[in-house]
Every structure is written in C-alpha cells, then in structure tokens.
C-alpha cells in the first residue's frame, strides 16, 4: 500500500486546526500502528469506502477535545459531554473531508463520524490492515490520526458502488 496518502490527512488536519480553531499543530511522529489501542482518550472514527475500504480515527487527548470544542462554541468545558463529542466529530469530519478532496482518484465516500471516549478503549481495523499513525503536538496537548484501508479489487468496484457486501 502506498502510504503517501497520509500527507493529505496531515495537511487537512493542519488546515482545519488553523482555520477553525486558530492554532498551529505540528507533526511529531509517524509510524505503523500495531496495537488496537488509540493513542488518546477521545476517538472520532469515520469509515472510508470507494476504491478503498477502511477507517480514519482522530484521537484527541482530553484537553485538546475540551479546548477545541471550547474554541468552536466559545464555552469553557471541564468534562467531555455531548457538545464536546459533537465538536470533536465535526473536526474529524472536516479533516477527513479535506483529505478526501485531495484523493479524488480514490473516489472516496465518508461515513458519518462516531465518537468513542474512555482511557482504555480499543478500535480495531480490518484484520489485515495496519494503519499509519501520525502524532501531533498542539498548544493544548497531543492528538493523533490513524488511517488504514484495503484497496478494493477492480472486479469488486461495481458491487461496492451498489453497496453490496464484498469480501476483499
């Protein structure tokens, strides 16, 4: 799998944080992820489909989630609540959307974001997918983006378009 796609997610995340939140984020690590444990406590997950099937997970440390939501809603949050979850989901939606636009050849469709919270939660990618994981520093703490997918075989593209279950 060509992992250069991850650059689109890095660029998109940088743009979203700058545009919507007015902060600069810095990429600090890049690796293949071995463990299903997300890096931080608040994970927003978006499914990917099209010429690939997989997921993007944006993992926020609690403080980044609270501050990011606070910046968007002009409110100070002390705990992760429904409003923080919604804001985190929307930030992830924008990150994934920006990356999708840069990956036009993959004909990607994005699912709606789901958010999972908790210190020891686990998110499993499809069995043979090893996601690329990018760590970031932000003014509020750390966050990470994990992206992993299988490329869909050419012969199965029509079935994917018809939203049938496909074994890859």
């Amino acid at each position, binding site marked *: 799998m060509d992992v250069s796609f991850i650059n689109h997610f890095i660029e998109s995340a940088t*743009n*979203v944080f700058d*545009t*919507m939140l007015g902060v600069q984020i810095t990429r600090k690590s890049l690796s293949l992820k071995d463990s299903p444990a997300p890096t931080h406590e608040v994970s927003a997950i978006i499914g990917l489909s099209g010429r690939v099937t997989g997921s993007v997970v944006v993992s926020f440390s609690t403080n980044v989630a609270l501050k990011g*939501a606070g910046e*968007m*809603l*002009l409110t100070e949050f002390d705990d992760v609540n429904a*409003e923080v979850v*919604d*804001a985190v*989901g*929307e930030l992830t*939606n*924008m990150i*994934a*959307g*920006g990356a*999708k*636009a840069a990956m*036009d050849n993959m004909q990607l469709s*994005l699912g*709606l974001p789901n958010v999972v919270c908790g210190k020891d939660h686990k998110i499993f990618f499809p069995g043979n997918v090893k996601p690329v994981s990018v760590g970031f520093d932000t003014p509020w703490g750390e966050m990470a983006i994990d992206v992993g997918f299988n490329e869909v075989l050419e012969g199965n593209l029509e079935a994917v378009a018809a939203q049938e279950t496909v074994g890859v």
Partner: protein
Amino acid sequence: MKILLVDDSGTMRAIQKRCLFKLGVAEDDVVEADNGQTGLAEFEKGGFDIVLTDWNMPVMDGLTMLKEIRSRNADIPIIMITTESERARVVAAIEAGVSDYLVKPYTADALNAKLEKWVPTSV
C-alpha cells in the same frame, strides 16, 4: 427574515447562528433541523426566506433535501455549507439548484462574507 438552518452537527449550527445573530437576525427567526427530512418538514410549514444546509446528514442528506425544496420553490436562496469540495460534487449541487456554496473548514470572515451576501443587514 426567517432562516432554516439544517446541519446534523449542533456545533456547526451554533457557529452559523452566532454569525447570523451578529448580522441582526433574531433568535426566534432561526429554525433548526438536524437532518434533511426534518429540514424539509420545517420548510413545508412555510415562511422561510433562506435555507442554509449541510450535505452529509443522516436520514436525508442535504442534496436530496435541496432537490425536494427546489421542486416546491424555485426561488428561495439555498446555501450549502459542507466539507464536499470536489468539482463533481459542487457541479451536482449547482445542477440541483443551489444558490451558493461554502466549504468547511471556513474562517469566521469567510462565513460572515457569505451570509452577509444573502442576509440583508437591515433585518
């Protein structure tokens, strides 16, 4: 001026309402919906001057809602505010009758400029 604001994200609705209120729109003049089906039901109650809508929403997406509204009203301004930025998607929205388009993420200035264009300052 009565505005229909449709987005499944309460966060994005809050950001857009903030901008509308700064333009002089009264809180009571903004009706919210969190999906296209609810948005269409609100629209059918009548009295709206402008529709702001997201694209990707559960139950009914914004493009489908847009087409339904256009089948009922050819003239009302409909502004799509969405992460969808690929040319084919924008073209699809234009062909469906969208009046204007704003891509997320957006700066406060960009949102303000877009809404100022369609919401008279003397509301």
